[in-house]
């Protein structure tokens, strides 16, 4: 429990950071062990440190992330909760390397993202990340199978596509185009595309946002299975409070800051979720 308290304390401090936040953060980091953050007995995989991000200029400038810090262990299922505009998607995009923070840093498996140039960032996404979006973002002119192959191409040791199609329940639909599929089937295809290369981190941005209750549960079960089976970090952004129960870690955000960050010791299977 001590660890959770520490992190709560840490995020509490972060909330009060002001203009000299960076040096304060560094001091705090040092208090936690001098830049390399470790958890007892568990491998630290993803460290998010004091991320700040604002949009707009002058009067219309809005600070969307106000110094976010999170640490995630290998294989952890983390849910980022919060209402619209709380900054959770922006944070996800920064972790995904498709947006850059104004300040702060992200360390993944010991590598600092800030040092990465465009090419390296692409390689980073290629090596570590799988992405799942609310709107699926499938390539409309490719079949189900080919959409999954888009992901498989990127992995050094991708999963077997046919086997995955069976796992996803898409084998019989493998030759269909996205517009011939239901929302659930499309999202399963998107999951297939994300996990086929067996990424270290699976970033899910409201993956059930556009789906009905039953389909949402199916998708959540699938993500849960993937997380268990392949042991990848899952970072899921949602505003559905019920989903937090299936996570190892819950980070609640509000107005660009972390309200709560805790480990969920009593993980509930997706099957048993209800909302």
């Amino acid at each position: 429990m001590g660890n959770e308290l520490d992190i709560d304390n840490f995020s509490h401090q972060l909330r009060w950071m002001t203009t000299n936040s960076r040096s304060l953060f560094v001091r705090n980091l040092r208090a936690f062990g001098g830049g390399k953050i470790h958890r007892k007995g568990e491998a630290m995989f993803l460290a998010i440190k004091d991320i700040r991000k604002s949009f707009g200029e002058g009067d219309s400038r809005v600070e969307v992330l106000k110094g976010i810090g999170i640490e995630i262990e290998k294989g952890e299922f983390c849910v980022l909760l919060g209402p619209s505009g709380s900054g959770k998607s922006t944070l996800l995009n920064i972790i995904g390397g498709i947006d850059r923070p104004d300040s702060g840093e992200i360390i993944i498996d010991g590598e600092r993202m800030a040092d990465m140039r465009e090419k390296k960032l692409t390689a980073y996404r290629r090596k570590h990340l799988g992405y799942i979006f609310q709107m699926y973002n499938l390539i409309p002119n490719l079949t189900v199978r080919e959409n999954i192959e888009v992901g498989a191409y990127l992995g050094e040791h991708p999963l077997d596509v046919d086997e995955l199609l069976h796992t996803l329940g898409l084998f019989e639909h493998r030759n269909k185009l996205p517009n011939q599929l239901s929302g659930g089937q499309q999202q399963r295809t998107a999951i297939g595309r994300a996990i086929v290369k067996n990424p270290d981190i699976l970033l899910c941005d409201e993956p059930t946002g556009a789906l009905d209750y039953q389909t949402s549960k199916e998708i959540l079960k699938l993500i849960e299975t993937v997380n268990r089976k392949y042991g990848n970090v899952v970072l899921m952004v949602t505003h559905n409070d019920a989903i937090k129960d299936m996570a190892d870690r819950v980070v609640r955000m509000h107005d660009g800051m972390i309200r709560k960050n805790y480990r969920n010791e009593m993980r509930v299977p997706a099957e048993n979720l209800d909302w």
Partner: protein
Amino acid sequence: MNKRNPLRKRLLRELKSEIGKYLVIFLLLTASIGFVSGFLVADGSMMIAYDESFEKYNIEHGSFQLANEMNRAQRKAIESNGVTIYDNDYIEEELDNGSTIRLYANREEVNKLCLMKGKMPETADEIAVDRMYAENNHIAVGDTIGNQTHTWKVTGLAAFSDYSCLFSDNDDSMFDSVKFGVGALTKEGYARLDQRRKIYRYAWKYAREPADEQQEKEWSEDLMKVINAETDLEDFIPRYLNKAIQFTGEDLGSDRSMMIALLYIIIVIMAFVFGVTVSNTISKEAAVIGTLRASGYTRGELVRHYISMPLLVTFVSAIVGNILGYTVFKNVCVMMYYGSYSLPTYETIWSAEAFVLTTAVPVLLMIAINVLVLRRKLKLSPLKFLRRDLTRRRQKRAVKLSPRIPFFSRFRLRVIFQNAGNYVILMIGILFANLLLMFGLALPDVLDHYQDALQNNLLCNYQYMLKVPMNAMDEEHKLRSLIAMLQFRHGVRTEQEEAEAFSAYALNTQGEGLYPSESVVLYGVDEDSRYIKDIGETDIKVSSAYAEKFGLQAGDTITLKEEYEDTTYDFTITGVYDYIGAIAVFMNRGKLNETFDLGDDYYCGYFTDTPITDIDAKYIGSVTSLDDLIKISRQLDVSMGSMMYLVEVFAILIFMVLVYLLSKIIIEKNAQSISMTKILGYTNREIGGLYIVSTTIVVVLCLLLSLPLEYWIMYLIFRVMMMTSISGWIPFVFSPMLYVKMFAMGIVTYAVVALLEYRKVRSVPMDEALKNVE
């Protein structure tokens, strides 16, 4: 209250955000419209100047040539048939610059000239020469021209109204403004020339204009009989058959329809490009359109909105194009005409028709095609738009592709299937641009090849045509004719060993429909001829030029007719003789003489490899050497050579613009997928490999596959051109190197576009894929 559609406010923003695309289309349309408008204005103004020149400069209704000067009684007898006869005699001089100049004493009554620069000659050693001839031979006012016996100071450059096209001989395949010119001297200057070499040519004018060509033909046929009866007629050319007068007018007319057709092809292609662009915008804005339609906007309002930009661009292009047409391009086109024809001065005449053809018609074409595309696209229900489901058929099946095909190849194939419509337009565009390019590259090549071929299969180095006096064949005055014939025989006897006599007879093809009647020379050669081999006693062999032009082969029967009579002759071809220099028939001399009742030992010319020096010059009608034969290719080169460069540049421009616009659309259409693949970790190189390489494959295939098609289209166009407007035959030969050149030019041009597209792929932001998240 007249409410204005608030959507119009988007137009300016749309223009700003897509300025590159609109600018490219605008430039292409403006250049095309401008050039065609300039051409039509120049063509129209020139045509008017040309038409008016008949009256203004009192151009003859025809001319004839006599062996001797006409006496007063003959003149009176002929003029009593309702015509006025004018002296139109000339003397030709070979000049030191290698050209021949036909000199007239300045004609003040008929065939007057239009002085364009300088002044008319006033003294015996002054001369006014044809402006084109002067330009081609770098002669300026103030220069001196001449030969060893005469020199003249050029005082003026002029357009000779009866030589708007410099044909030295009406039987020539092509005019020659380089080696042939006309000049006007003062009466005193003309009198100084060697009068023995005077050609007694007379021009005539009817008392009133013939009502139509048919009447003109009838009148001229009647007149010819009268003149023939009265005089020793050597040559007779009514105006409607005189190429030096008529060719220009015919050419001015035919170019016009070709230019208009070219413009409309470009407009139609660009209209489809706009159609594809707008379709793409509609797909992008599907949700907005759905909302607008759901809120009560009519389909018509949306069609009008989306058609605004294409129309605006076309309209502005048309206006700017027309302004440029009247100012810049008109002069370019006028210079082109002045570069081929010796036309009189013109006045720019505003042509309402040209304006309509280059403004209203392009705009209407643009409206028609875009309304068609837009109505089809906007036919879907608002709900479908809201769901972004723009497929017409609910379940659009994917084309099955075997997973064994490498993934990238399958991906590219999918891109090609997805953009099939774009690629079809691209193919048509490439075909069109490449046709232009082929035309630009082929013409100089064809001419070169023709010159080489002529050189390689000359019948002989010199072909002497003897001028048999017309009175030597006068059936009605047997004695006179006999004496004339004896004199002639004596005068043309040669000791030259290489010289070989032949007989010849000129007939005409019948001429059907679009194809005008054309002169055919029938050669009668000796059986053991050293120049024309393998002509047996019963052989009728047509020259390969004749065979190719009219698609003839052994066994076919040709019907030829006397030029001014109805008599026809049928010949059954026994073979093709390899000779491309003329439309000719080769047969046994005895047989030819017998067929045309010319007497057993009749001959009228010599084939020889070295010049003949011992025959009476007055009996030499003409000497044909290689230089005369390549006249046609030389002139085509002078008239069109510089234009070909322009055509090539224009072709490349069209190619570039089309590939740029259509591949840009493909990238824009797939922006979200491109963005997504970037997020997934694909490198720009890989994405380029998927989306740009697809276009590359299509472009390369188009370039390669269209080549044979282009060859055939070009072959047909060239053939029609040859059949309708040029006598003689130039074979269409397209050397393999030119295919390589065309392909290379296509690829290099495409590489430039591909680089631009690669930049575009790079600039697709990753958040593009996230735009529809919330």
